Each structure stands twice: as C-alpha cells, then as structure tokens.
C-alpha cells in the first residue's frame, strides 16, 4: 500500500506477513535451499525436507494428517480438481452433483463444465441470510448423487455454513462432500480429519501467505482423478515442479495463523466498523447476523452506487462486487441470489479486515463513509424509489 492508503480488502488477498517473506526468501537465491525438491542430491533433499515440513504445518492447522494434503496452484485449481476429479473417478456411482448458488465461480463454473459433459447439477436452496440447511442438502440427494460441494465461509458475505452438519448428512447417504475452505483458514477453525469432509480446498493468499499456492485435502481412500499429467509429484495427483518457496510460505503462514486468538481480534475490528457505519441511515448488513466469519462485512448503502462510493473513497481499498472477478463490474450473483435487487446489489461494498487493520483506520473509514454517502445521496436527490429499494 502507499502512504495514506487503507487496505480493507483482506478477503480478496492478504499482504504476505514479513515472517513468511523471510521464510520464502531462504529458498530463493543461490545461498538458499533453492534446488528442485524432486532432485535426489543433498540440496534437493533439503528442499524436499522444507516442503514436507510445510505440509505438516498446514496439516496441523487444518486438523489433518500430512498425507491428505496435496499442493496445487490455489483454491481455484483445488475446486476444479475436487469437482472434476471426484466426478470422473466415481462415474460408476452416478453423475449427479449438488452445490449452491452462493459458491465461488471456481465451483460454479466447474459445475457448468460438468453439465456440458453430461453431469446433472442441483442447486440447494438457502435462506435470505445466505445460510444453507443440512435438511435442504439432504433433500437434494438422489441415488445417483456422487458429490456435494458447499463452501465453508462465503467470500462475499462471510456467512459460515455448518459444514460438519452438512457433511454428516452426505456421509449418512453415502455421498462425498467437498468444502471450499479458501476463506476459512486462520479465521475459523478447521478440523478436517474429524469432520465428515472428503475434499477441501485451501489457499495461502487469504492468510498472509503468497498468491499462487494452495492445496487440496483428500481424505484417505477417496478417489480423485488428476487434471494435470506428467511426473510423480504429489503422488501423481498434481505433477509439476514443487515450488519450494511458495509451499514454505504457505506452511509458515498457517503456522502463524491462529483462529482462536486472531479471530477475536478481527471480530472486534469488524464490529467497530459496523458500529461506525450503522450510523448511516438505511444501511443494511448482508448475510446472517451471527453465523459469520470475523473478517467480512458486506454492507448496502441504498441510494448510492458502490462504484461511485469506491472512487469517492479511493484512499481505501474496499471491494465492489465479487472480489476475485471485479474486472467486470456487474451485480454480485451472490447478493442477487440472496434476494437483493440489482440496484441494492450495486449499492454494496465488502469491507474485510485483517491482521494489519488498526482502530484508527477503522474510525477514519467510518467517518469518510458517512461523509461520502451523504454527498452522493445529495447528488442523487430526487431519484426514483427503485434506486434505493
């Protein structure tokens, strides 16, 4: 960030923690552990040891055993691998997938790809707060259902699904369960081996680790077909030279992440921000009021356009629409699915707090938001009702 800028877009990505940068740098130069971790010579073996240490750190943080963790290039790839790979490897069980309309595009578009390959997809309903009930999931299960994919923490609203309860229903009915946990790590505890979860997607860059590295959790005994071929890395499931510095950064980041302690701090910042914003007339908090991750606040400011609000407060990095795809500003499909009108969806900003967010920043943001919403509402004075409904 530049001086004077305030970063409140931690749900899009997090700056890499200084301690993580240091660990990564140790693997990069000629003096570092920079050999190929698949090489059999001593420098290769040292790099390999670092990779395996990181795998153990990650496994430990998400409540899994190391051999269930396979590295990928990020949660997008993990989501694809989970859906395409599990559906392909379990064709004999059927060709039916269940997911929701609140998922990340990495799941939704992959579900679309499966449809075009002859699979059928059911979308489970959710309530207006964006919560999916285990009953609703169970009601969608058919004899030919192979997989249910429901995200843990929603990236736009922060709503947390009860994946343990949902997974339980899946397992009772003999169906595989995948959870996209890209937004969870470090904010909400994960107990993957204990929970009835077969597959989970993880990513480093939402938890102060580097972009471009993620992992897939695959419960022992669950069959998944690789998307990428060539080489024996990651048990043949995900070939390609292992990126030591990236993996080490991921491991270090998860070693540092402590949902119990950090979650409370994030919630405190988030609540302070909501306190400051709720003074604005008509503002509305989207998503379940309590079943939510501590880092995200999704707020509608009826009567102003988020794009304008974003430019007005351009010293703050906040997100309009869906963070990962905001190249094209269009109303968020997640908010639309939750019943917001196009106008309200376009009047919504996502604030997401993180490790480096200060109270002073929060107070500044709340004050500036109050002033700019007032200015833009004055600019729009006389506008018809639909703009704010």
């Amino acid at each position: 960030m530049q001086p004077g800028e305030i970063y409140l877009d931690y749900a899009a990505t997090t700056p890499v923690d200084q301690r993580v940068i240091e660990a990564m740098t140790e693997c990069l130069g000629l003096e570092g552990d920079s050999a190929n971790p698949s090489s059999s010579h001593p420098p290769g073996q040292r790099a390999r040891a670092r990779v395996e240490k990181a795998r153990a750190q990650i496994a430990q943080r998400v409540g899994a055993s190391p051999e269930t963790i396979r590295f990928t290039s990020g949660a997008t790839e993990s989501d694809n691998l989970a859906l395409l790979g599990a559906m392909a490897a379990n064709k004999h069980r059927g060709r039916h997938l269940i997911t929701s309309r609140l998922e990340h595009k990495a799941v939704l578009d992959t579900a679309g790809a499966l449809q075009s390959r002859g699979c059928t997809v059911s979308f489970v309903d959710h309530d207006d707060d964006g919560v999916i009930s285990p009953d609703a999931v169970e009601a969608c299960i058919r004899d030919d259902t192979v997989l249910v994919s429901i995200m843990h923490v929603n990236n736009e609203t922060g709503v947390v699904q009860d994946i343990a309860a949902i997974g339980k229903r899946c397992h009772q009915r003999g169906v595989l369960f995948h959870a996209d946990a890209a937004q969870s790590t470090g904010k909400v505890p994960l107990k993957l081996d204990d929970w009835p979860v077969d597959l989970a997607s993880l990513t480093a860059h939402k938890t102060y680790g580097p972009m471009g590295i993620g992992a897939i959790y695959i419960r022992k005994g669950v069959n998944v077909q690789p998307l990428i071929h060539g080489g024996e890395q990651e048990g043949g499931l995900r070939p390609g030279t292992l990126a030591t510095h990236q993996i080490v950064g991921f491991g270090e980041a998860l070693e540092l992440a402590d949902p119990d302690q950090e979650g409370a701090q994030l919630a405190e910042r988030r609540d302070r921000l909501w306190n400051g914003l709720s003074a604005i007339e008509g503002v509305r908090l989207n998503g379940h009021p309590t079943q939510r991750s501590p880092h995200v606040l999704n707020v509608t400011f009826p009567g102003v356009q988020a794009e304008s609000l974003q430019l007005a407060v351009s010293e703050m990095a906040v997100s309009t629409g869906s963070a990962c795809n905001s190249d094209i500003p269009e109303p968020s499909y997640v908010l639309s699915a939750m019943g917001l009108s196009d106008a309200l969806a376009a009047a919504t900003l996502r604030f997401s707090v993180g490790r480096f967010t200060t109270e002073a920043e929060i107070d500044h943001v709340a004050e500036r938001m109050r002033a700019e919403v007032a200015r833009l509402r004055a600019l729009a004075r006389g506008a018809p009702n639909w703009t704010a409904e």
Partner: protein
Amino acid sequence: MDYDSQVRQRFLSAHRAGPLNDGASGLVSGEAEDRTLNVWVRFQLRMLHGAIHTVRYNVYGCPHTVAAAEWTAERLEGRPAGALDELSMRKCLETLGIPVEKLGKLLLLEDALAACRRRLDEHKG
C-alpha cells in the same frame, strides 16, 4: 477500474450538482432513467434572453455518468438553446476518456436534455 483524470476530477468536484431554486422563473427541467442500466439523471436549466444561463443536475450513477453530467453542464452554460440538440455524448466519451461500454448510460443524459428541450418548446409554444 482505472478512471481518466478528467473523469476523476469532475466526479470528485461535481461543481454544478444540486437543484436550482424551483421558485425562480425561466426554469426548465428534464429527467431520464433506465432501471436496467441503473441510471437516473435530471438536468435543470435557467434560461435568460434565449440562452442557457445556468445548468444544474442531479444524478444517480457510476463515476463516468456523474462526470459526464458535470461535463455536459459545463458545456451548456452560456450557449444558445440550440446547443441542447447539438451536444454529443460520443464527444463526451472521447474527451473524458470514458470506455465505450458506458455509452448506453451516457445516452440517458441526451434523453434528459431532449426532455428539457421539449419543455422549452412547450413554454414557447
């Protein structure tokens, strides 16, 4: 979104925003809206000796739309009424460096000006 400084500056200042005093004489106004484009705009003109003396606007829209409304107001003040027909939003697009995808929204400004023009003609007629 990367905004041209021309857009940014007009959006942030919006000098000519806000309503004219409705009580005064020689006032015409025109509105346009498109719900699917998520835009509403109203222009108000004070006419003096057959020319456009003052322009004010209110707008609900994206930064480009706001900047285009400000630009439009700038351009019209001091011009004869005929300027209402001549003002081209393609010109605006070019001058302010607005992406062409936004033309649909900008054309609503033309609609609002056309409504002003009709009012003006009614007054005369």
